[in-house]
């Protein structure tokens, strides 16, 4: 065993390129030896005839151990049959093998390549080689494996030896071209997982790539009123839920509303005239950049928050048969999602915000809800919830309370209605405000007072700042 590196103590013979009786010359490759680092071909130091192989394939011996006995040319070889181990892979002297002339003892492939080919059921002797001196390289084997079975070993050769000893077809090499993996950006993949859309349901854009915009929006992020408290939104720590999140959201809404059914609820409603407030809003908006314009929904939310300050009995939780009043006005806002479902994020301390600030808060929280990026602060406990059907919705909404809250305020669409002012009749923009109250906590008269307070705030210009 030659020393093939300063730090080499021992080596394993992994292949013999010669057999007893072969004529060898100085410089011929006679064996392959595996060291800690790699497989190295061993050259012969002498001319002569191989008499005996001393170290069987697979055996590890120390540096300096004789590997074989070479008799000088012309000497009578000892007739003793060589103890050739059965394991030795003879260099396949089959009909189709390259002729053994000058380069006779050159193996067709290095042992790792040979083993690799064997695992794939290929015979290196039949593969075209592109390496030095026509040797078969790893790439040649891989190419042959992917192009088909032309070079497969004869089944008769392999069935009883190779195949049974080889564990399994290699998983490291893609055999043929498999079904093409869809091109989905990491962010789109994450969004799809969060929204419960299976990757195979995604349809790519024109360039064949699925991006975030190609992921169906709003099929639901999280259950009602418990928006995803996710301070580090970058790590999808869990694999996509097998159950579509949309179903999860519906289930959560169902559970909560069913619980709400147990609450004895009363309803009060009132038509609020919005002529002056909306005129004023238009005036304000005219002076604002488009990006800061205030929508009527923000005005109604703002009025509700301020009314909650004036009539505090409806802002709180029903806990253990008692009303626990809230200390701040944290307003829940029902946000309907494109594609169904809803989220109810919270605007904390809503009564302390100016109208513009509330508009900004509303914009932000709705945007976050609709992109599935709600924050923990958006998930604070609300004391009172508002639902606004918006301009294209119905005229009034009689909602159900979100337990443990004790009231829900609803607004229908802003519509123009005939309106009596003194003894005259005019046409004014109006909105129907409704209030659902928990009868255990308050009575209808409080609800009526609350709606009246909203009306007052809307017409009180000092409340706007």
């Amino acid at each position, binding site marked *: 065993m030659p020393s093939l590196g300063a730090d080499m103590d021992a080596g394993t013979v992994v292949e013999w390129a010669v057999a007893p009786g072969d004529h060898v010359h100085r410089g011929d490759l006679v064996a392959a030896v595996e060291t800690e680092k790699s497989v190295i071909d061993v050259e012969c130091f002498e001319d002569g005839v191989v008499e005996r192989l001393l170290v069987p394939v697979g055996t590890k011996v120390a540096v300096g151990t004789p590997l074989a006995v070479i008799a000088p040319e012309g000497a009578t070889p000892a007739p003793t049959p060589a103890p050739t181990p059965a394991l030795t892979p003879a260099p396949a002297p089959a009909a189709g093998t390259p002729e053994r002339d000058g380069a006779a003892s050159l193996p067709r492939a290095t042992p790792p390549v040979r083993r690799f080919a064997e695992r794939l059921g290929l015979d290196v002797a039949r593969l075209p080689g592109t390496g030095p001196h026509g040797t078969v390289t790893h790439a040649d084997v891989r190419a042959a494996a992917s192009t088909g079975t032309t070079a497969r070993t004869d089944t008769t050769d392999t069935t009883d030896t190779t195949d049974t000893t080889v564990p399994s077809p290699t998983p490291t090499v893609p055999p043929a071209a498999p079904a093409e993996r869809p091109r989905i950006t990491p962010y789109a993949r994450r969004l799809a997982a969060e929204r419960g859309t299976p990757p195979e349901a995604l349809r790519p854009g024109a360039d064949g790539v699925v991006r975030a*915009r190609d992921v169906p929006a709003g099929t639901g992020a999280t259950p009602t009123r418990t928006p995803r408290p996710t301070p580090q939104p970058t790590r999808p720590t869990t694999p996509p839920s097998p159950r579509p999140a949309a179903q999860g959201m519906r289930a959560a809404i169902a559970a909560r509303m069913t619980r709400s059914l147990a609450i004895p609820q009363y309803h009060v409603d009132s038509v609020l005239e919005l002529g002056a407030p909306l005129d004023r809003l238009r005036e304000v908006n005219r002076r604002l950049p488009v990006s800061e314009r205030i929508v009527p929904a923000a005005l109604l939310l703002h009025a509700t928050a301020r009314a909650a300050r004036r009539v505090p009995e409806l802002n709180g939780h029903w806990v253990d048969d008692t009303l626990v009043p809230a200390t701040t006005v944290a307003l829940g806002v029902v946000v309907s999602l494109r594609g169904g479902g809803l989220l109810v994020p919270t605007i904390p301390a809503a009564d302390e915000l100016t109208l513009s600030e509330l508009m900004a808060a509303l*914009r932000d929280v709705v945007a976050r809800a609709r992109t599935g990026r709600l924050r923990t602060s958006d998930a604070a406990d609300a004391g009172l919830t508002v639902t606004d059907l918006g*301009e294209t919705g119905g005229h009034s909404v009689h909602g159900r309370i979100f337990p443990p809250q004790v009231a829900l305020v609803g607004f229908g669409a802003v519509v123009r209605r005939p309106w009596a002012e003194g003894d005259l009749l005019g046409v004014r923009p109006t909105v129907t405000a409704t209030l659902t109250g928990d009868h255990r906590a308050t009575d209808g008269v409080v609800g009526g007072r609350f709606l009246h307070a909203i009306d007052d705030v809307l017409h009180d210009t000092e409340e706007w700042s």
Partner: protein
Amino acid sequence: MIPADAPTARDEAARALVRAGLARIAPGPDLDALEDTADLRDALELDSLDFLAFVEQLSRTTGVRIEEDDYPRLRTVASAAAFLTAAGVP
């Protein structure tokens, strides 16, 4: 001869701008299927915040200031495009 009511290249460009603005707010099959004359707030289920975002986007990309009084003119893709071309865009 080009009929007087045939869409001109400017109309086409204006409609593309409107649709691009909508695509930022409500992308998806509903938008692909949206007819030029359909009420886009209904068809795309835009609420007032969505609509404001659309107005803002349109205003930003075209440089046209859009007043609230102009909102009725943005009812459909076609009317919004007409509004833009009347304002000198594109």
